[in-house]
């Protein structure tokens, strides 16, 4: 079960909005440098579209490295644009556990899964116009439900399908080890 506060965005959130290219220079390994990916996660989203429906809410408050939000609710084609794995990594570093969107750009989806960063969940409908930033959510992957505790509503989510094994293993390396493909 993944629980936490929702952060809501519109459609076509591309990787330059998730982590602007100017910040791609930091090391993802070095514990001090790595934190900056959290600080700048989603900093490329135009202000009015950041934290819908009101807007003007940054994912991470100024000068902080982590977000108070845990679950991103996005519109269609989430993560389009470049292949930078820094994008799902930045969201994870900011404290995001899962994204819920009606559809993903494929490289972002694949990177989220293979790197084991965030769980990309597909919703049946676009929830970016019903859920509000700050709503308390609960994602139940067994019942395939997303519960909005604030608004007292329940929505369907899709099964993870053929990538479930990789997500459950924690990424492509862990999966390949389980399968005996790598030592």
């Amino acid at each position: 079960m993944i629980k936490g506060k929702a952060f809501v965005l519109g459609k076509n959130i591309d990787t330059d909005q998730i982590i602007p290219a100017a910040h791609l220079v930091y090391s993802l390994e070095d514990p001090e440098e790595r934190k900056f990916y959290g600080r700048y996660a989603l900093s490329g989203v135009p202000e009015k579209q950041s934290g819908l429906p009101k807007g003007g809410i940054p994912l991470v408050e100024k000068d902080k490295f982590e977000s108070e939000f845990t679950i991103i609710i996005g519109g269609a084609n989430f993560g389009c644009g470049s292949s930078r794995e820094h994008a799902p990594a930045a969201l994870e570093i900011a404290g995001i556990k899962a994204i819920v969107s009606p559809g993903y750009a494929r490289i972002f989806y694949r990177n989220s899964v293979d790197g084991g960063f965030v769980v990309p969940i597909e919703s049946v409908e676009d929830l970016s116009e019903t859920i509000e930033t700050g709503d308390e959510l609960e994602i139940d992957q067994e019942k395939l439900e997303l519960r909005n505790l604030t608004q007292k509503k329940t929505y369907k989510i899709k099964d993870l399908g053929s990538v479930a094994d990789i997500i459950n293993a924690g990424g492509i390396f862990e999966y390949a080890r389980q399968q005996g493909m790598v030592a």
Partner: protein
Amino acid sequence: MGMTLTEKILANHSGNKSVKPGDNVWVDVDVLMTHDVCGPPAISIFKKQFGEDARVWDPEKMVIIPDHYIFTKDKYANRNVDILRGFAADQDLPHYFDVGTDRYKGVCHIALPEEGFTRPGEVLFGTDSHTCTAGAFGQFATGIGNTDAAFIMGTGKLWVKVPETMRFEFDGDRLPPYLMAKDIILQIIGDIGVDGATYRTMEFGGPGMKAMNIEDRMTLTNMVIEAGGKNGVVEPDEITEAYVRKRTDKPFKSVYSDPDARYHSVRRYNLEDMVPMVAKPHSPDNKATAEELEGTELTRAYIGSCTGGKLTDFIAAAEIIKGNTLKIDTYIVPATTEIARGLETEKVNGKTLLEVFEEAGCKIGRASCAACLGGPEDTFGRLNSDEICISTTNRNYPGRMGSKQAQVYLASPYTVAASAVTGKITDPRVFIQETII
């Protein structure tokens, strides 16, 4: 049941007689490419997972091309190039194109074919979304992340879900003199949307393909990612083979779609009916014709990148710019050092391209990605505030070329050059009908 070109390549690289869309297969990789932004994190994952002393599966098959953040004072960006250099030396990698040496190339997707790494029938992965460009050579090529790249570095393999194929069929014997491949792909993306090809292959073919040279084809496949496509592909023909043969003597085997291959959908376009197109801010599918936007005020023009920074793109721009003064700041960035040299030798009306651009007052940058993706603040051509730019690049999401206050219109080199002359969005037919026809 027959197979598409993409299905055939995935079948013969995974030891299967046949595959169908939706199958998950492990494929053998012919070439893995990485650059300065994604190479360093891929290398650290490789070391963490396979051990500090691990060796790359096949040094001949790994290509490292620094190109993104090259001419900058940013210390982290420079450190990333140092990491690549160190890794190439430790691993004895023969195909590393180091910054500051004669081997330096510039934008990876153009450097790959120039150096003979794009070959029909092969599988190429790269840590960059525009790796799909290489599909112009009749191969399977797609972008991946750092973790997948690290996995390939250790194993030479990667899992792929076999995509469905959308076919785009071109009729017509020639491209009208004002039309470029950029217009065609902007039209297609506008028609199907930025997620219109998500998870799918975009296969380009039909009689009109013969009218497109290899650089035109690269412009088409380059932007399939802007429609969400997994890969783009053009069936190889004598144009492809002639190009590849000049660049490598490695053997390759061309693969073609079967006549009874199954497609997700087929769309037809007649090249002779198409017109100059523009993608308005802030999405590549926000289409309009150049004519509809005629008169829109601009403050900058930019000609460069893996989409619109090839030699034929600069020849096209120079045809319009020659003898004109420009109303707005115009930036010229050759994709590679080979193209930069071409600017000094290729001529229009007796003048080299470089002379044409310099006389018109263009600002000329060094081969690299430069402002295509914004980059560090001191990047050449970067949009640092509320510029309104018309550009031959491939993406115009908020902040792509720097500031999120800026606005970017995407267009062909003809349209960008015509607009640079007038300072407003201008349909290139205004110039081309006078001077060329």
